[in-house]
């Protein structure tokens, strides 16, 4: 169980940057009063960011992942979260096995 000094420096740097991003929104938002387009842009933050994180896996990895993502979307429209995850994982396993 060893910790290399440079590795520790990298982890601490990542941690500091990450906490800065986590607290910054709480500090800055108090000055914002949003309406119209700005409000619409703000409301779009949640889906825009989540989609951006997973789009490469869903669209630019392979047809199995893309098809599994489509199956997962159908599941998400009618099933609870954990069942959706289970359907998605089973779909990708089945499709990769079929390939």
């Amino acid at each position, binding site marked *: 169980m060893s910790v290399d000094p440079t590795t520790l420096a990298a982890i601490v740097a990542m941690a500091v940057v990450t906490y800065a991003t986590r607290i910054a929104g709480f500090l800055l938002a108090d000055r914002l009063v949003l309406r119209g387009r700005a409000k619409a842009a703000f409301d779009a933050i949640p889906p825009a960011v989540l989609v951006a994180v997973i789009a490469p896996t869903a669209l630019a990895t392979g047809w199995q992942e893309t098809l599994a993502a489509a199956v997962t979307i159908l599941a998400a429209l009618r099933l609870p979260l954990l069942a959706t*995850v289970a359907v998605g994982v089973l779909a990708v396993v089945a499709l990769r096995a079929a390939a």
Partner: protein
Amino acid sequence: MSRPMPDATIATAGEGVRDILPAMIACVPIAALFGALAVGKGLSIAEAGLMSILVFAGGAQFAALELWTYPVPVLALALSTLLINARHVLMGASLVPKVGGFSWLQRIAAAWCLTDEAWALAERRALGRQITPSYWFAVAGLLPLVWIAATFLGAWLGSFLGDPRRLGADFAFTALFIGLIAGLWRGRATGITIVASAAASALVYVVLGPPWHVAAGAAAGITAAACVAPSGRAAS
């Protein structure tokens, strides 16, 4: 009501636990996968665990493993982490109007355990009511504990885990996010946001590679939503 309401606080915390439970279960294989991959990259079990303790941001941690070489590129890792986690700024800002009852100390602590999953669940809850500290710390505070424990487990299991792709564990993250996005659906504007973000993110991922796709997709989705929105003060 001026009197404290411990029963209501406990009930609210219970709702938070119930809401985060699927994400807690889903994050076990993902964190274990991170631990196993980290050890494969040359990190010790302690180092892999320490990263999950101090950073606990899945996307940034996986991206760090992609960039990880020896000597360790500290600045590149910090930059990649900043880009991927820049979304936290927007997430925290969007939570502020919904956490009016939080003290400053509670906000500092709330920010510390801000994750995609907790935030998405809190946003969904905020469609109907204010977010209380008991709800937030239940929905947000438990996930890092599972993430840390499963990281240590995965790092320890290491090569015994076998190929995680065979088990589909690598897709759990994607499936979880699809479920969270479905919970945020609010009509046509959401659809336009999703299409713009997905297209920009995938394109930038192919052309420039990670981590730029996150910022590009988020910017495209937000811009698209602003463009199709009715302008001015008439908007509700």
